[in-house]
């Protein structure tokens, strides 16, 4: 959020959202309000500020969380297994970003990423072990269709 001040509340809300997903929950305005001991209106306003700052993406008709990068609020083609639980990511960049994020916080980062070839739908897997990313598919490549300058024009497609 380079163009606006990040309040302490907004930072707490963002982290509560990410940790909620990592704990296998589906954070909402109500659940974050309960977790932080604050009112729904204050948390809803923080959700809106975080969305305006592109820290999260909300469903257009509600404040349900669609994305809290690198995590997804809805099932996607990018599943990231972390020990005995799994989370969803928004894209292959975000999927690999989950263990990168955990490593940055000093948490265990080993992960198994399951996705599919966007062309033929064949299952593709990535492993992060001991800080290294490997794949059983040696020819696998990453493709970004949208140039960086247009990523946010349609972030769901991107």
């Amino acid at each position, binding site marked *: *959020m380079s163009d606006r001040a990040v309040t*302490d509340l907004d930072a707490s809300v963002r982290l509560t959202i990410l*940790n909620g997903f990592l704990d296998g929950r589906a954070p909402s305005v109500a659940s974050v309000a309960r977790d932080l001991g604050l009112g729904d209106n204050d948390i809803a306003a923080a959700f809106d500020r975080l969305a305006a700052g592109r820290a999260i993406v909300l469903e257009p008709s509600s404040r349900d969380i669609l994305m809290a990068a690198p995590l997804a609020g809805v099932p996607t083609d990018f599943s990231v297994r972390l020990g005995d639980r799994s989370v969803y990511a928004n894209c292959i960049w975000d999927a690999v*970003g989950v263990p990168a994020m955990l490593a940055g916080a000093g948490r265990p980062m080993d992960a198994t990423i399951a996705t599919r070839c966007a062309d*033929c739908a064949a299952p593709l897997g990535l492993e992060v072990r001991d800080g290294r*990313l490997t794949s059983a598919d040696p020819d696998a490549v*990453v493709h970004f269709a949208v140039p*960086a300058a247009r990523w946010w024009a349609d972030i769901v497609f991107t």
Partner: protein
Amino acid sequence: MRLFRSEEHVRQWSATSGIPVGAVFSLDALWRLAQPWFHNRLSSTWRRATMDEAHAIFEQAGLTGAFWRLDG
């Protein structure tokens, strides 16, 4: 931002979908991109990268050219 079995599958997907091929790169480059991009995401002081910071991260991962310009 998807994974494909090979570059050939990217070309097939592009031909079928009509969406032009954008940037194709390796898993090594993806890993070099993701680590600096996400390493501080669980910090209370995280903020979005500035354009210059983002460009530096792209360049460090070997991702250069007009495709990777946020001001393009």
